C-alpha cells in the first residue's frame, strides 16, 4: 500500500489503512519519542498517543501534505507536552537513557561480544554522546535529530515543526555547537590544526 493509498484509506476510515500506517511509521515515531523523552516506557506511551491522535483527527490532515511530516510534527508536540507535564529534569531523563543503553545488549555493536575492550570503548562513547545530548534543549534536539538521523532537509524540518527556516538553522547551529563543546571536539581539532601547522 503506497502513501496515497494509506491517506485515501484513512480518509474513508479504513482500519487496514490505519494498520498499514502504524506498521510503516511506528519505528520513526517511536525513535523520535525515545530520543526526546529519553526512556523506552515514555517513548512507547508517546508513540501510542501519536497514533491515537492520527486515528481520531485524520480529518485535520491537509491534503497534499506529507504523511511523515505530519507524524513528525505530532510526535514532536506530544513529546514536548510530555516533557512539560513531567517537568522532567534533563539529567534524570538522560540517566535513564544511558542506563538503558548500557544495560541492554541490543544497542551495542556485535563486535563488542568478541572484543570486550572495544565494547567498553563503544559503551563509553555512547555514554558521552548521551550526556552531550542532555545539554541540548528539546527544540534544538528535535531539529538536530530530524536533520542528522532522519535526514530531513532544513525546509522540511521547518514545515514539520512549524518553524521558519531561519529558526531551524539557528536551533541546529546551537545544537551542534553545544554537542561540540560537550564532546570536546574543539580541543581535538585545535590540537590537530596546531600540529599540522
Amino acid at each position, binding site marked *: 500500500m503506497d502513501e496515497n493509498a494509506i491517506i485515501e484509506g484513512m480518509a474513508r476510515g479504513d482500519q487496514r489503512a490505519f*494498520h498499514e500506517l*502504524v*506498521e510503516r511509521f*511506528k*519505528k520513526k515515531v*517511536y*525513535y523520535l519519542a*525515545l*530520543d526526546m523523552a529519553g526512556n*523506552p*516506557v515514555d517513548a*512507547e506511551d508517546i508513540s*501510542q498517543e501519536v*497514533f*491515537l491522535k492520527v*486515528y481520531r483527527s485524520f480529518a485535520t490532515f491537509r491534503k497534499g501534505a506529507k504523511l511523515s511530516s505530519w507524524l513528525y510534527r505530532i510526535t514532536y508536540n506530544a513529546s514536548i507536552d510530555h516533557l512539560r507535564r513531567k517537568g522532567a529534569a534533563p539529567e534524570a531523563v538522560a540517566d535513564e537513557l544511558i542506563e*538503558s*543503553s548500557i544495560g*541492554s545488549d*541490543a*544497542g*551495542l*555493536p556485535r563486535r563488542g561480544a568478541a572484543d570486550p575492550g572495544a565494547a567498553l570503548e*563503544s559503551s563509553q*562513547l*555512547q555514554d558521552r*554522546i548521551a550526556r552531550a545530548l542532555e545539554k541540548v534543549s528539546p527544540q534544538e534536539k528535535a531539529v538536530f535529530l530530524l*536533520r*542528522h*538521523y532522519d535526514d530531513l*532537509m*532544513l525546509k522540511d524540518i521547518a514545515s514539520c515543526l512549524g518553524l521558519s527556516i531561519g529558526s531551524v*538553522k539557528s536551533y*541546529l*547551529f546551537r545544537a*551542534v*555547537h553545544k*554537542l*561540540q563543546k560537550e*564532546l570536546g*571536539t*574543539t580541543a*581535538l*581539532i*585545535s590540537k*590537530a*590544526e596546531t600540529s599540522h601547522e
Partner: protein
Amino acid sequence: MNECQTCRDGMIEALYGELAPAGKAAFERHLDACPECRTEYAALGETLKLMDKRERVDPGPGFWNGYWDRLSRRMLWEKTEEGRRPSLAARISRVFSGLPRWAYQTAGAAALLIVGILIGSRLIGPSGPAPAGTVAAVSVPAQSGAVVQAGNFVERSKVLLLGLVNYDPATEDAYALDLGRKKAVSRGLATEAAAIRKGLNEPGQRRLRELVANLEVIMMQIANLESGQDVDGIELIKQGVDRGGIFLKIDLDRMARDARGGSRPASPAGAASPVKKSQA
C-alpha cells in the same frame, strides 16, 4: 555583516550539503583564507562524525511484533473510558453530593408533601384514579445510579483481568502483557471501587457490593505488582481469581442485572465476549 559571520551562518548548510551553489564558492574561499573559521568548521564536522556513531537501543522484535496489539488494546481502553463518561444522573448526584444534610432532609420532606398532595388530588379530585399505565410505570424499580456504575466497573475490571490471567510468560513476551498500563488502569479502578462500594448500601445489593470489594482488592494487587514481568505476583493473582471464583461471580452478577432489566455497559468492539483461555 563581516565575512566570518556570513561564513558561520552557512556552516550548518555546508555541513549537511544544503549550501546554495551561489554561496558555495565564496564560503570555500573564505575558509581557505580564514584559519579561525576553518578550525570551527572542521570541529563542527568532527562533532557530526562522532554523532554518527551514536546507537539507538533497539527494543527487539518482541516489542515491534506486539506493537500493534498493544496499541489496539489501548484504543479499546480509551473507547471504554469514553463510554464511562458520567451520565446525567451521575452528574446531578455529584452536584448534590456537596449539599449539607439538612438540605436533603428538607428536600425529602418537600418531595413527600408533593407526593401526598398528588395522591390526594388523584383519589379525592374530580379526575378519579390514575390510568393503569401510569401506575405501572411508577411501580417498575429502576436500577440506581450506583448499580449502573458498579456494573460498568465490573465489566471493565473483567476485561483487565482477562488480559492478565490469559497471559502466559512461557509463550508471550513482557511487552505483550503491557503491565505498566494495566497497573495504571488497576490503580484507577481500585480508587473507583472504594467510592462505588459506599453507594451500594441497599439490602439487595450485598452480593454486588462484595464482588466490587473482591475486585477492589485484586485491582490493588495488580497496581502493586513489581515493574517488569513479576511472574510470581501475576501467578498469585491468577490463583486468587480462580480460588475466589471471580469470573463466575462476574457472570452471575451480569445475569442478575440483565434479569432486572438494568442497562449493561456496551462492550467495546473486540471485547464483546472475552473468555478466559482455560474456559475457551
